[in-house]
């Protein structure tokens, strides 16, 4: 089968990313700028800016002179790289063989894939259309060799397809720069009047090689398919996945659990072989009508304990709607971490020993059903504001008994009102207040303790200024109340209870 390769080139990836993040810039000229030494230059420009005459590499000062309404944004190369990785991975929908070309191009080896998309033309059209819908400007070329596809993408008409029989003809009119040559070689060829690739076809190879180096001849051969060019394909991350297909659809919970147990054992073997453990497992139950339910469970630390994981799934399988029956079950470990030692059961990071405890097991179960943000451990935080003095962590990840609270918090109430309750009719001199519809008499006990807001946080609750906290005891119910007066508004609030 003849090799076929698509080359995609994203000439303004950084600018496209910026436009995607800020849709309000639509229709405005945008440039992503970068600094080199003390020069600020344009790193990427969007289409509007290109039509205004701006090009990447231009100095910002001259760009501003040409186009006064230019919107700029500084480049974030790391984020661009991540964005590019996502796009490259997305291209895998067309073919499993994806190779990156630097940081702005992708080769897709579509050999034998085009018929799945109704032919090459429809396939390339689909690529372009979808990428355009993502807001990306892209240029593409499709040819029998990566070199030719690259030349078509960068210098040819956009989305050109070079038929296998007419590869040389399709390249003939493209500039020699399309051969991916070093800058000086291109310059020299141009000076000699060899401006197009076609002009090189008839020249004797030996003298070309002697004059411009072997590399140039090799590039030409690669483009025309006379020399092979292996691509460095991105290998898809190894999948930890187990699939069970049923001849007859199943619907009983016991059957599902039995199949799940088998899948878990299957997955366990794969994980053991690679010395990995999974932190998150996704179970997809595909039904007869092709609808699927997905169950995701997480664990605090990498695990491959089939029984323990089955128990976590067990809670979630309750009340599962099997519809007309389940046809296929796919279990996949979506978060993988190295787990060297053979683990007997679900481990927990208590004291970093990695030893499984019944507590960690319990916390995993609770967190999987109630949500990881509903099962919490607490640690003291660096703040003297009562609301900010505590940090809560998901108990599945932060061990119990980690950071002790200081004894200084002895003067704090054991219950806190959120938000504080306004004591409408409180006059300290008389010592009467209305609380929950009752008249209360209070006696002053201790205070005041002044707490001032943290000026570096603009906290709406602390707009009233510094607070003077008092502990008072209510004569009627004998409850200890933690109340405060706001400095600016002179209003009184109930913030906590000491009983």
């Amino acid at each position, binding site marked *: 089968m003849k090799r076929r390769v698509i080359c995609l080139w994203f000439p303004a990836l950084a600018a496209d990313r910026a436009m995607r993040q800020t849709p309000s810039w639509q229709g405005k000229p945008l440039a992503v700028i970068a600094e080199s030494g003390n020069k600020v230059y344009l790193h990427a420009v969007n289409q509007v800016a290109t039509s205004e005459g701006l090009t990447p590499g231009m100095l910002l000062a001259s760009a501003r002179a040409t186009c006064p309404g230019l919107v700029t944004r500084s480049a974030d190369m790391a984020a661009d790289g991540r964005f590019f990785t996502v796009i490259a991975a997305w291209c895998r929908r067309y073919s499993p063989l994806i190779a990156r070309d630097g940081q702005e191009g992708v080769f897709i080896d579509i050999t034998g894939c085009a018929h799945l998309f109704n032919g090459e033309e429809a396939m390339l059209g689909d690529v372009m259309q979808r990428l355009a819908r993502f807001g990306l400007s892209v240029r593409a070329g499709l040819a029998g060799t990566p070199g030719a596809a690259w030349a078509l993408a960068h210098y040819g008409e956009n989305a050109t397809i070079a038929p296998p029989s007419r590869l040389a003809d399709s390249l003939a009119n493209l500039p020699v720069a399309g051969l991916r040559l070093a800058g000086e070689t291109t310059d020299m060829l141009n000076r000699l009047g060899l401006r197009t690739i076609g002009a090189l076809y008839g020249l004797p190879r030996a003298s070309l090689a002697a004059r411009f180096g072997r590399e140039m001849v090799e590039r030409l051969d690669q483009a025309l398919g006379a020399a092979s060019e292996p691509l460095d394909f991105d290998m898809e991350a190894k999948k930890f996945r187990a699939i069970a297909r049923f001849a007859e659809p199943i619907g009983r919970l016991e059957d599902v659990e039995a199949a799940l147990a088998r899948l878990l054992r299957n997955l366990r073997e794969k994980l053991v072989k690679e010395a990995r453990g999974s932190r998150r497992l996704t179970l997809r139950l595909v039904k007869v009508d092709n609808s699927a339910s997905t169950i995701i469970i997480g664990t605090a630390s990498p695990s491959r304990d089939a029984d323990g994981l089955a128990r976590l799934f067990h809670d979630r399988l309750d009340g599962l709607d099997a519809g007309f029956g389940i046809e296929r079950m796919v279990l996949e470990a979506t978060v993988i971490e190295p787990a060297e030692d053979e683990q007997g059961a679900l481990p927990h990071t208590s004291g970093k020993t990695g030893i499984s405890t019944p507590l960690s097991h319990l916390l995993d179960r609770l967190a999987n059903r109630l949500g990881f943000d509903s099962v919490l451990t607490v640690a003291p935080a660096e703040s003297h504001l009562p609301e900010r003095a505590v940090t809560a962590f998901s108990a599945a990840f932060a061990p119990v008994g980690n950071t002790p609270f200081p004894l200084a918090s002895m003067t704090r109430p054991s219950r806190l009102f959120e938000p504080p309750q306004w004591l409408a009719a409180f006059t300290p001199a008389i010592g009467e207040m209305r609380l929950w519809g009752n008249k209360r008499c209070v006696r002053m006990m201790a205070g005041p303790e002044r707490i001032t807001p943290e000026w570096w946080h603009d906290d709406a609750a602390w707009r009233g200024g510094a607070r003077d906290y008092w502990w008072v005891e209510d004569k009627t119910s*004998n409850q200890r109340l933690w109340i405060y007066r706001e400095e600016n508004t002179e209003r009184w609030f109930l913030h906590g209870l000491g009983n």
Partner: protein
Amino acid sequence: MRKVDHITGLRQRMEKLERGLSGMPSARLSFGLGAIDDVVEGGLAAGRMHEVNGLAAWSLTLVLAGRSGGPVLWCARTPGKAGSSDHRLYPPGCVAFGFQPSQLVQVFCANRQELLWACEEALRSAALSLVVMEDTGNDGSAISLTAARRLQLAAEAGRTPGLVVSMEPEKAVFPAATTRWQASPAPSDGSHLRMALQLTRNRAGRGGQWMVEWNETARHLSVVSSPCRRPGNAANAQLAG
């Protein structure tokens, strides 16, 4: 190496001796106050459900949580949702009751069904020293006898004491409690926190009432005086009557 072995051996022996000296099975969560412990045979029985209500219920719960000496799971309703109270446990304040909040696991449940499930799992796991179920549901309905029985069985299976806490005074929420305590705040002498404790239900023995004081620095409860001898206070008059 041998020295270390020797020390471990001695430690184990000491533990054994201490257990023997205290004269009660370790499966009791004691109050650390002879007067009360005597009535309940050394403390709250592990593997049983207990109930505390009244305005000082949390104080007593936190004291017991501190005395349990291990991880404590505290189940409550998700704040801001229907059925949750407008005030909630504030971990730093636990220190004053001798309970180190780093030992605390807070669990928030959206409804009572989840609350019961979480408590049952926690009790059964045997991984905790105490499981607290805070039920401040505004609906005020009691827990059904079936649910209560399930929790009781879970507590037995995990040999963990369970404590149902509610602020409603005079109102039993948990029908099958082994002991039920009424804790009301009492007027203090200005320094230490006082509460009037009343044992209103005790399946294994008699009831009782005490006026106790919590000493934050020494971290122990002590009996102040018989509550009926303090006139001129509504809460006490009620208790005395």
